């Protein structure tokens, strides 16, 4: 398909040669091409880290935020202008270390945002410290001692937090990842993809060789269907997803763990308290230079509970 838009920005990409981020970048660009998303209506919101730089390398709107805070920035953007397609990119330190609280909160909200985790098990941009996804006892290149923290399991945490689309991809399988990204973007609700991303500079344990031997695709198992179609499927499919998420070691599954579109999105919930939300979301309000926004009459009727009529005969005898 020839796309109307060129999604690659013309900046030199300053990731290390061979970095898994290149795979994620290609998969994203291809997914954008396939979906033909309008660059001016698409926003990549990223955190701080090697991963966070991706916002500059794609020719759609880019908001490169603060370490750990891509999700709340994205939330503000999406809620204010639900017409925008919002995609969050962050590192494992970013989304699951300093940003873990926001990560959990997004699940509870089920905002229609896609979160893509660049999971390289290290803090790339600060030179290779252990990230929250590095398992206990593992000693990658830049560590002086083996890691003393147990890993957080991103897929499991996403499930526990309420994400309604949970998947895992592999940075080096760009075609597979491209499909996941497309599905995640099209998903109605909060979507999460844990992308296994080799860091060639600092991670000498979770290398391409490591993954090549272990990765298999969930979709290859004809008995595994992650999609909740009816309410009664929710529990068993959820439990199955949890079980699958615990698989790690000789065999590492990639693919979709869980999809549930029966949960209301945050946009739907907001419409209940703000009935005009869908037609006139915040970003579509008209706030015109040089004019008042509401008139005196409207103001007084809005706040009538604070207005007291003064009696003519003001004095008690």
């Amino acid at each position, binding site marked *: 398909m020839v796309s109307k838009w060129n999604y690659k920005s013309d900046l030199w990409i300053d990731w290390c040669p061979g970095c898994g981020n290149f795979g994620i970048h290609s998969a994203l660009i291809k997914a954008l091409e396939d979906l033909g998303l309008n660059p001016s209506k698409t926003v990549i919101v990223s955190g701080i880290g090697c991963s966070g730089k991706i916002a500059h390398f794609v020719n759609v709107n880019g908001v490169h935020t603060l370490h750990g805070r891509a999700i709340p920035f994205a939330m503000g953007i999406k809620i*204010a202008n639900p017409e925008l397609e919002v995609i969050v990119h962050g590192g494992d330190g970013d989304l699951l270390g300093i940003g873990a609280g926001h990560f959990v909160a997004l699940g509870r909200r089920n905002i229609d945002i896609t979160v893509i985790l660049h999971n390289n098990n290290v803090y790339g941009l600060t030179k290779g410290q252990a990230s929250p996804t590095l398992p206990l006892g593992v000693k990658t290149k830049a560590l002086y001692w083996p890691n003393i923290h147990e890993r957080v399991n991103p897929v499991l945490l996403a499930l526990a937090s309420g994400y309604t689309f949970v998947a895992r991809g592999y940075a080096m399988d760009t075609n597979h990842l491209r499909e996941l990204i497309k599905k995640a973007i099209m998903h109605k609700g909060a979507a999460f993809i844990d992308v296994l991303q080799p860091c060639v500079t600092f991670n000498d344990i979770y290398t391409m060789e490591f993954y090549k031997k272990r990765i298999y695709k969930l979709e290859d198992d004809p008995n595994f269907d992650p999609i909740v179609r009816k309410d009664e499927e929710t529990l068993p499919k959820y439990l199955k997803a949890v079980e699958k998420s615990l698989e790690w070691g000789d065999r590492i599954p990639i693919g979709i763990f869980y999809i549930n579109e029966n949960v209301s999105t945050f946009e739907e919930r907001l419409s209940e308290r703000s009935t005009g939300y869908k037609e*006139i979301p915040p970003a579509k309000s008209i*706030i015109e230079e040089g004019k008042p926004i509401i008139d005196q009459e409207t103001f007084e009727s809005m706040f009538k509970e604070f207005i007291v009529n003064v009696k003519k005969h003001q004095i008690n005898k």
Partner: protein
Amino acid sequence: MSSVKEVGVILGGPQGSGLETSMNVLARALASRGYWLIADREYYSNITGRHSYIHMLVSSDKQPRSLRYPVEVIAAMDAETIFTHFLDISERGVLLYDTYVSSKTLSEVASMEEHVKSRIEKNIQRLGLEPDVKSILKHLSEDKHISAIGIDYSKVLKNLSEKYNINARFLSRYLSGLIVSAVALILGIEDESVKEAFQQYFKEKTIIAEQNFAIYEMLRKQLEEYIGLVKLDPPAPRHSKIMVASGNDVVAMGKIVAGVRYQSYYPITPAADESFLLEKHSDILSKYKQPIGSLIVLQTEDEISAITSAIGASLTGVRSSTSTSGPGFDLMIEGISWAGMNETPVVITYYQRGGPSTGQPTRGAQSDLFNAVFAGHGEFSRIVLSSGDHIEAFYDTIMSFNLAEKFQVPVIHLLDKFLANSLATMDIPSLKDVLVERGYISKGGTGYKRFSLNSLISPRAPLGSEETVMWYTGDEHDEYGHICEDPEIRVKMYSKRIEKDKIILESIPLDYKFTLYGGSDFEYLLLGWGSVKGVALDAVDKLREKGLKVSYLNIKLLWPFPTLEFRDIVKSIPEDRLIAVEHSYGVNIASLIRQTTGININKKISKYTGRPITLSELLISLDKIISKETNRVVFTYGE
């Protein structure tokens, strides 16, 4: 008893027993009679049980601006109120109390902190009284000629319960109405006004209003002989409609008038009530005839999310804000620094409370000036505005959004708990001249440069503009918003973000920088910002009555500081005639002024108990300072 211009009232009782309701209903009743009033709410960081009180000043001829001790009327829900405030009743004043508590002793008051108790014990001893209510009541009536009027609260409530068949469990909810009724009768407010006040306050719950009014009717009989015992002069004429609202309320109204479309918050005292009012209006906005859009009010998981999501919303072109107090503001600082770096308009309503740390969460302070002005790493332009009273707070809220957008900077609107939680009467704000100023809004387009270096203020296109892509980053960046470490670009961009201060100072009109009250013929100049305004103006009036030429300079624009204009206004008097007043230890405005103008202010009046400065405190301290007895006065009055 002849009538008076002004009456001070204290309503006291345990937290959670409805004093806020009493305050609101009484205020409405008084307002509908045409009276002016101000009411401060003092309470512990506690939900139920600790001592709480409303301190009110009602006037027949003008808006009261400060509080004073002693007061003419105290209505006590419990014994603790009597122990705590018996010294606050003026001679020949009135104490309304529950006959049930007359047998109570101080040691029985479990909810009282030990330190408070021992302090009160000392006072009681000093007066040669016994530490019990009986002894105090005797002292009040005999030595102070105070009318101590006992009411059997439980009897009144029992009657009510019989009349309306109310479950005894719920009876305590009517205590607030009882207090309102008793005070209204003493003040001689007309029945109709009391009735309507209940009705307006309880809205759809008409039966509750009716029941409360029934209490009033019962008490009217019982207190017949005391009706109008403390009588206010007939009120001076005023508009036919007036507003009664707290600082939190007026800020919320201001935000709606300003067109806020995204407000995030994480609950914190004394900011949360503002968001609660906004939340109520999430739908109302969509309901009005004009297509004015929807207001999203969002409780976030923490303050970091509050500020960063508000910034996110702002990037889409939306007027957005958040609201917090000290602990929350600390957590927002990194986000504010991002907004500064990305020239993003956002309004942070910052209600100060007692610090440091959790501090005194429900008490007032002005001790966060430097945090608002200086916190954040790296240098960037920001605007810090303060408001001296409810009306200022309303217009300043609107101004904050205009300034944020015009100059593309974070605006910190610095308020405090005194204002937030106090209720005042005021004329309904006029929206006639409230205009939106959005600054340099652009439609974007191909090749759009969000951070164009052509001017200090670059054209701002919202995310989502047609045919436009743009980038933002917290890193130093080029005109497109891409990361850039080039030293030349660095200097240009960094300077641009700071040099905005100049045009901010040029554009903001003088009366948004500060206002001089009292006249320009001053021989002494009192100066301050925010919530000291009321008491300062009252003091200025009193001193001028005595022939002392004192004026008050109410500083609104705290940052960037209006150095030139400030120097100009104070140049007529020597430095040692300048006196600063603030609810803080350091009286930090003096330091800020010295830093930005070189002018030395070494006369300082300070209070940091968490309670507001009273008029008499300020008058005494001014006297001491003007008479050169001292350069610094620290006050502590008030429970």
